[in-house]
């Protein structure tokens, strides 16, 4: 079974802090994705990566950055957290060629 592991289920941080969300997958997938999930808005893509050290902006990249130094790990960084970044963050991985994505359990992030 594919395993996508997010480092924290719940996280509380303060405004202005630099926040790191970590994601690790164990299936040697090429693609990795970060989404945020908000009620009534579904899932929106923040950033994705097709390969190590490669990244591309999704639909809502403002206020975020990412890092992919190793194939299995994809980090989401909030450079200076703000209250409007309070949300559920979901990491996913997938093989190429239009294969389904596999999701982690999510991190519920609260910015106070």
């Amino acid at each position, binding site marked *: 079974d594919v395993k996508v592991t997010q480092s924290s289920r719940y996280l509380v941080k303060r405004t202005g802090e630099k926040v790191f969300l970590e994601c690790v997958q164990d299936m040697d997938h090429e*693609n990795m*994705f970060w*989404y945020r999930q908000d009620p*009534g*808005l*579904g*899932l*929106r*893509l923040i950033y*994705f990566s*097709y390969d190590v050290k490669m990244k591309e902006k*999704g639909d809502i990249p403002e206020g975020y950055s990412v890092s992919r130094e190793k194939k299995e790990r994809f980090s989401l960084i909030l450079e200076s957290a703000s209250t409007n970044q309070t949300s*559920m963050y*979901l990491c*996913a991985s*997938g093989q*190429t*060629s*239009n*294969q*389904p*994505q*596999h*999701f*982690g*359990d*999510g991190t519920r992030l609260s910015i106070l």
Partner: protein
Amino acid sequence: AQTVTQSQPEMSVQEAETVTLSCTYDTSESNYYLFWYKQPPSRQMILVIRQEAYKQQNATENRFSVNFQKAAKSFSLKISDSQLGDTAMYFCAFMHNTDKLIFGTGTRLQVFP
């Protein structure tokens, strides 16, 4: 740009009954993929079913089946013999050849005993 619309924010069904969740999408592409994902209260998103647009036959997975109407750009999910464990958020999603998923806003399904 592609969009996915789920017009039913919430639905409920009695155990053992059948329920259909609606999804429409907009695209100018001819070849693409459609998915239904399920997110139970425990939160992990799980793939329910996948449909390839060039296949006319509707996909089925046990109690889950789709009604794919390409011309109408409709992709509904039918759950037969509903079970309490089917209670979840259901998301319809679209994928073109970029490997990026575009999600609808979700339908919250409650199965009652």
